[in-house]
């Protein structure tokens, strides 16, 4: 067996599907004020943070779970979940990586995310989130020298309360929709990034999310603030063990770009998608929103969505500052029984604002894919422009692809362009590739990577190679 075949065989059965046997501290099952107080208390949070949570919970009680999305799922019993789970060894938080539970280090090594000093040669600073807590943040010292703050959300609440108070909930308010508000009430950890004025962050910052414990929801909160004239590129990776229950992942990500600042946010989402018959897998109901607050600011979302049983998310940009730019590049792949309802929202408020949406959806097997997007140009947003391109690729004849663009233009000087295509990988194309020596998987991978190229090019180098492989592997067994 050659190496590629081995690689594929390894990944066929979702190689991140192992779970780590580790002792946990959990909040009591269920959702109520006491559980929220338990979370806040165990994290030794100040009163204002608890108030934020309780306010969100009050609101949550009045909200109804939305049901307008295309992929339907069995009702989730919110009282039957654990809202906090942490490795016991994190109880008295280790001060350095040497004190970290070796089992945790081993887990991250298995995932290909080396946390130890000596292994950190790849120049990417990593914050690792295991179930509900951040277990390690690398490269901290180097970043601190430039005034960059990159730490867990819990630490930011303790050490940088002014920044957190000012910006947390400023893009996704506690009064937002059902899942976002639930997150505001019970979020456990996540990453916090602050780039000071004029600083270009010298390395990629990265958070790696891992769900381990069973019957546990993961509710992380990420907050990134790019101060005037600064730049940061941020990567997010996700995996989870194979379990035959569905697990809920409802994160909130808020980005704020001030004058002339730029944030590039890339995600490679590879949560467990469930088995071939659609049993198990993660429900990925995430709220991601960026605010281009200052003039000439820019926020760019790039996502490669290959995992999860259901993906339901719309990373959005609010273009408030004049001349600000929002971009959304997406590859979403569904295979077997996976379902996705994903897209973006571009809200143009400032003058001369520009947005670009490039969405590539690939469906195979019995899966179903929906692009849903909103472009909204407000009456004062003179000379704004949007360009949207939505392409769908179908493999086989049991899958579905749908595109629903919502377009609102209230400004006569502004302009919206929308292009959409649907295509199928033809047997003739595959035959042509086969005749040139490529086997079925190689042929599909080549054609699909060609289809996604515009988006793959947006990813940072290290990620692009990974993503390219993942794209091929996710579609393994989908033809032939």
């Amino acid at each position, binding site marked *: 067996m050659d190496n590629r075949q081995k690689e594929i065989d390894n990944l066929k059965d979702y190689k991140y599907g192992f779970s780590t046997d580790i002792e946990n501290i959990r909040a009591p099952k269920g959702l109520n004020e006491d559980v929220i107080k338990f979370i806040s208390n165990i994290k030794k949070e100040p009163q204002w943070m608890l108030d934020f949570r309780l306010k969100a919970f009050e609101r949550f009680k009045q909200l109804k779970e939305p049901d307008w999305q295309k992929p339907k799922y069995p009702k989730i019993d919110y009282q039957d979940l654990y809202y906090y789970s942490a490795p016991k060894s994190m109880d008295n938080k280790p001060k350095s990586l040497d004190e970290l539970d070796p089992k945790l280090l081993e887990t991250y090594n298995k995932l290909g995310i080396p946390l130890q000093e000596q292994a950190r040669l790849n120049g990417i600073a990593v914050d690792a989130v295991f179930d509900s807590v951040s277990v390690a943040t690398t490269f901290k010292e180097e970043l601190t020298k430039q005034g960059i703050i990159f730490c867990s959300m819990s630490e930011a609440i303790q050490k940088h309360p002014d920044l957190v108070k000012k910006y947390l909930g400023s893009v996704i308010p506690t009064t937002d929709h059902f899942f976002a508000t639930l997150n505001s009430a019970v979020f456990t950890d996540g990453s916090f990034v602050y780039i000071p004025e004029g600083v270009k962050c010298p390395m990629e910052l990265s958070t790696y999310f891992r769900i381990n414990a069973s019957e546990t929801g993961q509710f992380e909160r990420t907050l990134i603030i790019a101060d005037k004239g600064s730049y940061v590129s941020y990567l997010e990776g996700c995996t989870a063990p194979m379990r035959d229950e569905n697990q809920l992942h409802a994160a909130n990500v808020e980005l704020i770009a001030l004058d002339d600042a730029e944030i590039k946010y890339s995600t490679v989402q590879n949560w467990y998608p469930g088995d071939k018959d659609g049993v198990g897998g993660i429900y990925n109901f995430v709220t991601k929103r960026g605010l281009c607050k200052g003039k000439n600011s820019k926020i760019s979302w790039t996502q490669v969505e290959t995992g999860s049983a259901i993906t339901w998310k719309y990373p959005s940009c609010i273009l408030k500052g004049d001349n600000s730019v929002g971009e959304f590049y997406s590859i979403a792949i569904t295979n077997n029984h996976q379902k996705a309802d994903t897209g973006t929202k571009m809200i143009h408020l400032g003058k001369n604002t520009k947005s670009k949406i490039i969405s590539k959806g690939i469906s195979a097997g019995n899966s179903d894919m929906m692009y849903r997007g909103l472009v909204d140009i407000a009456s004062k947003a003179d000379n704004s422009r949007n360009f949207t391109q939505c392409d769908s690729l179908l493999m086989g004849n049991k899958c579905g692809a749908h595109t629903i663009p919502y377009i609102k233009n209230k400004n006569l000087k502004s302009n919206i362009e929308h292009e959409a295509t649907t295509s199928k990988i033809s047997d003739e194309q595959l*035959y042509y*590739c086969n*005749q*040139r020596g490529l*086997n079925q998987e*190689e042929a599909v991978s080549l054609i699909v*990577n060609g289809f996604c190229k515009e988006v793959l090019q947006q990813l940072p180098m290290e990620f692009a190679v990974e993503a390219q492989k993942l794209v091929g592997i996710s579609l393994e067994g989908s033809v032939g």
Partner: protein
Amino acid sequence: MLSIESLKAKIDDKEILKGLNLNINPGEVHAIMGPNGSGKSTLSNILSGKKGYEVNGSVTFEGQNLLELETEERAHKGIFLAFQYPLEIPGVNTNTFLKTSINAIKKARGEKELDAIEFLKLIKQKSLELKFDEKILSRQLNVGFSGGEKKKNEILQMSILNPKLSILDETDSGLDIDALRIVSEGVNSLRNKENSFLIITHYQRLLDYIKPDFVHVLKNGQIIKSGDYELAKELEKVGYEDFN
């Protein structure tokens, strides 16, 4: 090298090949001529391994039962088909496609794969030989190519892969004289004691540039006559209709 015995092929219950026999030895160039619908393209599809046909009879290639092999395995063994209608693959550079192809074949044969520099060197040399505009190589595979560019691209691929048996399925149709010459030069430069060719065409024209060793007339799913280059000339004079 290639031996076809009483080959029959059906598609959708329609019999297209009705007992075809053909032998090709190393180094030989065979031309198959015939009218529309005589089964010429079906023959090239069956040799290269296209699915969807019900096949009977035997085809051996270098002593091995060809019909048992997957399409890509036949390519690994050195069978190349220059397509009548080359396919477009959007987003994939011609260069990338060629490199993926040559390395897939090398890997299957247990040979060392080409790195980027070795590949560029090879492709530069071949483009020069074939007077092939290199700019085309950075464009998406066959997307927006003219008919002539597509055919020339097939010949470039052929010359890079250096196959043992090249099948040209009406490569000359729709070509102007310059393109025809380039295609012929591509074939002639690969001709040697080992490499064989099966050239499928309607017209004698191409055979003026590539002198075949044998000419066969395919009509109604069978080879009705075989001869040398003179047979092509005779055909051109008489026409397929009256040729018996």
